[in-house]
C-alpha cells in the first residue's frame, strides 16, 4: 500500500504551498542529491503534467532546486533556493516536456556533479509522498522512505545471494528488492530497501566482499 504511517497523513511538516508540488518536489530533489552522492554542479528538470502547468505558482521549481541543494521540506530557505543555488555555483534549468503516460506530477531530473551524472524519473503521488519510477533509464521503483541501498554492479551469478547473506549476517531485514540490468553479464543496478538504519560497517562489508560491486549509494529521506 502506498500509505501506511499516520505521519503520511498528518505530515509532513513543510513550508507551503503544496504538499505534492512543494514538499514532494523537495523530497524528489533530496533523493536525486543522495543518488548522485556529491554536490550537484548542473541540473536539468524536465516537468510533465500538472507539474509543468503550475510549477511556478506552487514554487515547484524552488522546491526541486532546494531538494537537490539538500534542504529539508520544512526549511524556510526553500523560497530562496535560487539565491542558495547561485551561492553554490549550481547551474540549473527547467523545461516542460511530454513524458508520455506518467503520473500527472512527474519530473525527469538529470544531475551532474564533479565526477558522476544521474537521471531520475520521479512522481509526487500526493500528500508529499514520492516514488522514483526510473533510475538512469532502468525501471527501478523506490520511495526513499526506508533506508535504501543502491548497488551499481556487474550482472554476475550469485550477486544477490552474496548481498542477502551479508545483510542477514549483519542483522538487516530486506523490505523490498529490485534488480535491473542493461544486458546479460552487463551493467546492473540493484535497489534494496531495509528496515534498519544502515551503518558504515555494512557498506564496507559489501564493498570488501563483492568485487563486481562498483559503487553504493544510500538514499533515505524524511
Amino acid at each position, binding site marked *: *500500500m*502506498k*500509505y*501506511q*504511517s*499516520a*505521519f*503520511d*497523513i*498528518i*505530515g509532513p*511538516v*513543510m*513550508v*507551503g*504551498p*503544496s504538499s*505534492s*508540488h512543494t*514538499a514532494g518536489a523537495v523530497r524528489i530533489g533530496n533523493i536525486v542529491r543522495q543518488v548522485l552522492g*556529491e*554536490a550537484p554542479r548542473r541540473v536539468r528538470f524536465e516537468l510533465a*503534467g*500538472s507539474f*509543468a*502547468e*503550475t*510549477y*511556478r*505558482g506552487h*514554487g515547484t521549481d524552488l522546491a526541486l532546486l532546494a531538494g537537490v541543494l*539538500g534542504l529539508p521540506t520544512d526549511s*524556510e*530557505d526553500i523560497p530562496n533556493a*535560487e*539565491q*542558495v543555488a547561485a551561492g*553554490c*555555483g549550481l547551474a540549473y*534549468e*527547467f*523545461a516542460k*516536456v*511530454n513524458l508520455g*503516460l*506518467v*503520473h*500527472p*506530477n512527474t519530473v525527469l531530473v538529470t544531475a551532474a556533479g564533479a565526477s558522476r551524472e544521474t537521471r531520475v524519473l520521479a512522481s509526487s*503521488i*500526493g*500528500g*508529499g509522498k514520492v516514488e522514483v519510477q526510473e533510475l538512469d533509464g532502468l525501471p527501478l*521503483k523506490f520511495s526513499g*522512505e*526506508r533506508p535504501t541501498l543502491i548497488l551499481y554492479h556487474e550482472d554476475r551469478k550469485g550477486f544477490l545471494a552474496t548481498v542477502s547473506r551479508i545483510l542477514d549476517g549483519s542483522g538487516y531485514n530486506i523490505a*523490498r528488492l529490485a534488480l535491473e540490468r542493461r544486458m546479460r553479464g552487463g551493467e546492473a543496478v540493484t535497489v534494496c530497501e531495509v528496515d534498519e538504519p544502515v551503518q558504515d560497517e555494512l557498506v564496507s562489508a559489501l564493498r570488501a566482499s563483492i568485487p563486481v560491486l562498483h559503487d553504493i549509494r*544510500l538514499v*533515505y529521506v*524524511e
Partner: protein
Amino acid sequence: MAFTHLHELIRMANERGVSIAQLMLDVESEQTGRSKEEILERMARQFDVMEEAVRRGTREPVMTRSGITGGDGHRLFAHLMGGGTLVHPDTLRATAYALAVSEVNAGMGRIVATPTAGSAGILPGVLVAALDSGRYRREDLVMALLTAAALGLVIANSASISGAAGGCQAEVGSATAMAAGALVELAGGTPEQVGHAVGLALKNSLGLVCDPVGGLVEIPCIVRNGLHAITAMTAADMALAGVRSVIPPDEVIAVMHEIGKDMPVSLRETGIGGLAGTPTGRALRHKVFGERAARRNAGAGRPGEQGRSGEQGRAGEQGRAGEYGRSGQPGRPGEQGRSGEYGWPPEQVRAVAPCRENGEDAVAGDVGGGRGGVERGDRT
C-alpha cells in the same frame, strides 16, 4: 497492515474494544517498532506546528507571496471577537483558523500537510477551535489527529488525496471527512458514528474540482478550507445525532475516486479550467506572472479552451491536456533561465550548507515510521 476500508477499520476497533485513534496508535507502534509514547510525542509536535500557524494567521494579517490574497483569517477573527456574528463565534473560529493556516501555507510558511498542504487548514481549524473551547485537553486533540490519520489512510489507499489525480474533493473533501470523523471521536462518538461522519462530509464534497487561479494554492483553496471547517463540524454533529450515511461511507470514498478519474484534466490542478479560466482568473495569473507567462499561454493554446473537452489521454488533440497522453510528440520548447520571472523580490539568503560536498548532509534521519513500500503509481 494498511488501512483500506472504513468497515474494516471499524470492525477492528470494535473487536479490540478501542477507539479508532487507539487502534491507529497500536498499529503504528506495531508497524514501526516505535513506542506509543514516542509516536504521541511526535504527533503532539505536529499539533504544535498546526497551532502556531493558526495563531500566526489570526494575530496578524498574513499576505500570500503573490499578493492576490491574504489577511482574511485575521479579518474574520477580528470580526468574531467583535461579536454580533450570524454564526456562533466559537463555530466561526474554526473558519477563521482554517483561513489563517491556509494563508500561512500560501505564504510559504510552515504548516502540516493534513492530508495535503492545499487542505491543511481544515483539521487545525476545527481542532484548535476545539482546544480553545476549553472542553478538551491537548492530549485529546493529539488522539483526534490519530483518528484523522486512520481515516486519511483509508481514503489515500482506496481513493486519492491528490488534487492532480482526483480534484479538490480528494484534498479538501478528504480533509473535511477526516476532520468530521476526528471530531466525532473527540466528542465521544462510536467508530460507526465516525464512519457516518466521514460519509456525510465526503458526500458534500463530491465533484469539487481543483481549479486554482494561476496554479496558486490561494483562490479558491483558502476559502474552501475556511468554509469546509464548518461542514466538518456540522457533519460531526449530524453523525453524533444518529444521522447515517445511507450510501455506505466506503462506497462514498470509492465513488469519489471514480468521479476524480472522470474529471477533465483542466479541472485537476492544472490551473487551466474552472475559476482559473475565468476572465479575472486569467487576469490575475497575468498580473502575478507577468507578460512573459501570458504570452507563453497564448502560444500554447488559450487557457480555458481545452478545459471543456476533458479528453485526457488523447494526446495531440488539445493543447495542453494532450501532454498527459501517450503521444511521444516532443514537448514544447523548454524555458530556460527563468530567474526574475517571479513577480516578487528576492529575499535574503541564509543557508550556505547546501554547498557542502555530500556525505555529511545525507538526510538519513528519522523517517517517522513510514514503512510504506510504494507498490504502484497513482496513475490516472
